């Protein structure tokens, strides 16, 4: 039983991180209909920036905040410079661009900081809170950060004009444009948000898996799985999906298939959801008119 609770707790922790990655994917998906394959590498690169700042003596939370800002603006910039000219390009061109970004960020991180593993500090102490060895402050912290972020985003989308404009641009670009919303900038904003959220995910996961240029590959796959399980067009669903995937992955990994096949489990989940319920648990089925 204790083992079971421990597995659930660590599943929630990784679930929180998958939820962040999934949330970033959803941000880009709802505003542009694209699946960003570079989401993981962008997050990894941002985490390296944070590491470099902390290494240079900047306090953790200052580095945390400024990394999110830098990530936000670079996401914005990527959309304006690289993806805007390709707005009407076929899907293949976009996929190639995302793969290119993935390779470039991976290579850049290796070029600047080398491919050796680095330790990343955690703001949360590794003490165990209830004194029974089940749940650590680190785990609570990661989940809390994710939930706070989700709350902020919900408030932003529901109660601010800018959030409303972004939703309008995503749902019906033409009408939104007629109402005076600058749709193209809303897409850029979506990219910025996704990049910032990704940076948070990267900084949360780095203390657990250690920092190296390939750290996000597996996590990105789980993020995909989470986003798909919850419904890739629904932020709340994506977060729930992330948690579901995290817990399931841990339980299946420790009770049924062992840790070596965890990625295959993600593959089965991705393909399974796409086949059986492409809209996800919380998603709406979109009927396309021909």
């Amino acid at each position: 039983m204790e083992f079971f609770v421990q597995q659930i707790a660590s599943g929630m922790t990784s679930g929180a991180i998958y939820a962040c990655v999934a949330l970033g994917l959803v941000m880009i998906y709802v505003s542009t209909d694209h699946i960003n394959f570079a989401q993981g590498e962008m997050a990894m690169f941002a985490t390296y920036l944070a590491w470099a700042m902390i290494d240079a003596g900047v306090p953790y939370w200052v580095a945390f905040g400024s990394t999110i800002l830098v990530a936000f603006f670079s996401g914005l910039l990527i959309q304006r410079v690289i993806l805007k000219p390709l707005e009407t390009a076929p899907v293949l061109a976009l996929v190639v661009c995302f793969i290119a970004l993935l390779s470039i960020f991976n290579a850049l991180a290796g070029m600047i900081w080398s491919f050796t593993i680095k330790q990343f500090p955690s703001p949360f102490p590794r003490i165990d809170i209830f004194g029974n060895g089940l749940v650590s402050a680190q785990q609570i912290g990661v989940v809390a950060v994710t939930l706070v972020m989700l709350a902020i985003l919900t408030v932003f989308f529901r109660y601010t004009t800018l959030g409303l404009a972004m939703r309008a641009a995503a749902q019906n670009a033409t009408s939104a444009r007629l109402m005076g919303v600058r749709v193209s900038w809303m897409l850029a904003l979506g990219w910025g948000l996704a990049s910032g959220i990704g940076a948070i995910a990267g900084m949360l996961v780095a203390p657990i898996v250690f920092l190296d240029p390939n750290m996000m590959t597996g996590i990105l796959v789980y993020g995909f799985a989470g986003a798909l399980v919850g419904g890739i067009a629904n932020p709340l669903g994506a977060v729930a999906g992330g948690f579901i995937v995290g817990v399931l992955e841990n339980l299946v990994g420790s009770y049924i298939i062992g840790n070596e096949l965890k990625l295959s489990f993600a593959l089965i989940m991705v393909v399974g959801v796409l086949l059986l319920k492409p809209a996800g648990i919380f998603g709406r089925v979109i009927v396309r008119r021909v």
Partner: protein
Amino acid sequence: MAALARSWATKPGIGLVASVFWIGLAALPLIGSVWESPSFDYYMFMGQSMLIYAISVLGLNLLIGFNGQISLGHSAFFAVGAYTAAILMNFGGIPYWATLPVAAVVCFGAGFLFGFPALKLEGHYLALATFTLAIAVPQLLKHKSIAGWTGGVGGLLLDKPDPPFGLPLTADQWLYYLCLAVAMVLFWIVFNMLRGRSGRAMMAIRDHAMAAGTMGIDTALYKTATFGISAGITGVAGALSAITIAYVAPDSFTLQLSISFLVGLVVGGIASLPGCMIGGAFIVLVQNSSQSISDWMKDTFSLRYDVPAWAIYGTLLLLLMFFLPNGIAGGLAAIRSRLGRKS
């Protein structure tokens, strides 16, 4: 793109050009008998790799370029082909040349089966599913339940085959001819398929699936079959790579391998058969010169660490998407048609 395919495929001189090209490639090893250089065998090995990559890109191009299904998971089929050959040679005692058709059949089956779920997926979603496949495969290959067959993390070591019938060739020259022969056969098959009814059906599905269905094309069958054939071709390339390198290990079949196929495809030219050869050669050239490019960049920009080949690949992909979306083959065709119009 359809226009591109039509223009070269039906030109009267195409057979002659292709024959000269292949004869030229076949004559390359003869240089070795005139020019005695210790590194000549290495150049032959590079030639083998180029042909192997060209075959993989051919498989991928058939799927992406001519059928419009995006796959980022062809490293998986390459791996299945390589392991099929390695296991058959190592445990079955089957001669290396006989493993090629088996690899083709096994990978066709694997691709056909993966093609079924892929039927329901389009564009980004298919890319996503195959992306996951590419990431999961190295881990699957390492799993201990099949380690007895695959050699686990360490992989399998094979013997490099000797030239048959006492031919006066070195092992690498012979393997070059083997790769060349296989490439010729596969390019010929694909060329003929694309010119015929099934090729037109594939391209019709790419251009407008629903219209193709209305015209009586069984889109589901064609899409899965194309997936299977594409995987089969890439699987043969995988088997060839296992034979020529004489070693297979799970970590050579990562997502990065899929990305290099994609680079070859985009550089050579989407929906272009000559482009596959250009792309295959290009991948190997970049891989080989990446160390010197890296050294040059380190000196010029005073970098501390090596520049990985991925930096070059990624930058190139972006630039090509912007400036030369049809790749080198497309660029050459554009130049030729412009020159033709002037005269």
